[in-house]
């Protein structure tokens, strides 16, 4: 399959009557890792949820295309089958649905009817990926995210990503709540998936994650749009000088969304 090409143009997103993303532009190609950084409340997670199609997030303006196809016209499951994946900050718990059953159903939905993965092959693959992520084999049969710790949920998101092999993977604050060992394991999982056929959008609050997953591009979000872009040195600069430096440079007083509204 050809390298993916995701284009976001002038994206505006409203949540509960309030515009959170305000004219965002971004382009991601296969093989690239883009990091979106920014203080809390600047619209980073809203961007991620809107791209995936969360029902509470309404796109009021703009275009999103994946390989020229209109993403915004697709339902959530169609987006996933087109190759979008969102590793969520707070994934839902689904009691009674085993992790393995969930992932197999998802994988088969993506592969399509008549192309289902053989059961044995699936379980071998799942156990292998779980081993790489340092997950206990029992997680296959546990109910989806139920009673998982924060770190276990994050690893489970990465497990799904590595099983489903998306074309565009969005990671929403995958580093939050992880200790350094877990962070390393998660980062290794992401790095092992780097490929010319896959693009990444990594949303993070801290530069720490970017020491392990080295981005090609770094974007800073404030007030619902990208206010500065650069390479990985921008993340280092932010770590050293803080967001206040950038705010001063750009003449922004309150970086959160709605301050000027």
């Amino acid at each position, binding site marked *: 399959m050809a390298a993916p090409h995701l284009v976001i143009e002038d994206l505006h997103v409203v949540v509960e009557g309030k515009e959170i993303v305000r004219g965002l532009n971004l382009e991601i190609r296969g093989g690239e890792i883009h990091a979106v950084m920014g203080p809390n409340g600047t619209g980073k997670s809203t961007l991620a949820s809107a791209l*995936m199609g969360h029902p509470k997030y309404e796109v009021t303006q703009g275009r999103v295309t994946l390989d020229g196809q209109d993403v915004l016209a697709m339902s959530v499951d169609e987006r996933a089958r087109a190759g979008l994946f969102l590793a969520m900050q707070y994934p839902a718990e689904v009691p009674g649905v085993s992790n393995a059953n969930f992932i197999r159903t998802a994988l088969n939905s993506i592969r399509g009817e008549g192309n289902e993965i053989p059961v044995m092959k699936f379980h071998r693959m799942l156990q292998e990926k779980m081993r790489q992520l340092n997950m206990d084999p029992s997680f296959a049969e546990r109910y989806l995210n139920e009673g998982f710790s924060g770190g276990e949920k994050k690893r489970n998101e990465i497990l799904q990503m590595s099983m*489903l092999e998306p074309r565009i993977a969005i990671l929403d604050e995958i580093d939050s709540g992880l200790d350094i060992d877990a962070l390393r394991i998660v980062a290794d999982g992401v790095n092992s998936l780097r490929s010319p056929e896959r693009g990444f959008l990594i949303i993070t609050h801290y530069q720490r994650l970017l020491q392990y997953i080295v981005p090609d591009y770094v974007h800073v979000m404030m007030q619902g749009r990208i206010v500065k872009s650069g390479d990985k040195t921008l993340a280092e600069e932010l770590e050293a000088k803080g967001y206040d430096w950038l705010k001063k440079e750009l003449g922004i007083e309150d970086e959160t969304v709605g301050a000027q509204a």
Partner: protein
Amino acid sequence: MTEPITNVNANLVEELTARHGEPDWLKARRQQAWRSFETMPVPRLEKTDLRGRAWDFGPFPAATGAAVPQPLAQLEAALGDQAAVFIQDGTVTRVQVPEALRARGVVVMDLHSAAKTEPERVQQLLGRAVADDENRWSALNAALWHGGVYVRIPRGVQLEDPIHIIHSESEQARGGMPRVLIVAEPLSRAEVVEVYGETGQAAGSYVHSAVTEVIAEDGAQLRIGVVTQYRKGPTHFFTRRAVLAKDASVDWVFGDIGDGFSVGLVESRLDGDGSRSVAQGFGFGYGRQHLDLTASMQHRGRFSESDIRLFGVLRQRANSVFRSSTHMHRGAVAAGSEQHDRVLMLDATARADAIPMLLIDENDVSRCAHAASVGKIDPTQVYYLMSRGIPEKTAVQMIIWGYLQPIVDALPSQAVRDWVTQVLERKLAE
């Protein structure tokens, strides 16, 4: 108010007694229960209107000419030679007990025969858990039960494989009065599963009253499964109660997968110190199903423990009441109990009530809690599953099945689990 009862019905007691050559004590009890039935008023229930429901039943022919309904025939085939009693339209048609069970003294037989072969025990225990005059429908059952089943697990005998009781009713049935008596002697362990399957459209507004009595003696451990597929038409009453002695344990796992009209009780009387009971049940309502279910725990024993977990899924114009009740009687020192009721409404036309009740007369209980909710499927769960490529319809089915499966999995017998799974999956895909 009592409806006029025809002479034909008044003779049913004599007819049944004569047919089975029953001892005098049983005949006298049936007659007494009949008088109770005749004089007891139709009760007024808070959430179920019985005023418009007829109380038709009988005649009860000695043999049935009807074939086993197709879905149950599949289940029968799957059971192979496992321990099972088959009852068709109120007649015990087959009792199969593996030789290994007989050799260990396990008794599985029809209740009419047991009244003759074990008269002292049956006389003493029949009606111990469910009194003949407890209410109008238990009185009706006590007067007219037929095609009953008796199971006795001798002291210390621990069974690995479940015992099946398969009731089926065809359109020829004229009301059902099934009765089951399960006796677990001290330190025995067993699993018993009852299935009620009804097919076809009932011709009239018959009344169906089922009674299951469970006697768990000291240290006995039982798991009792009950799956009903009550059809629309008749009024179904059921009264299932276990009486637990010291350190006894009874796990109820029950569910209704039909579209019938039913009112019933599943209860454990935790009389013995250290006794424990779990009641987990589900309702899967569709059509114009009406289910008025009470799961109840009566704590009298010290250190007795119980849990109630009820789960309902309602579609179309189904209307269900899930009542969970825990009563800590005075003396139930250090007893503990929890209730969880959850009802999912899939269609706006369905109606449901989840009513938790705690009655606490003892000051010194260890825990007593409840949680109840009625609502729609959590949209964030649906979104999450869809975000991995799963279509919405499949996602919703998975979530519902996720709630039902742990209860279905707790049912004794692989054959019954497979049957229930098949029925539910077919209904969910509709």
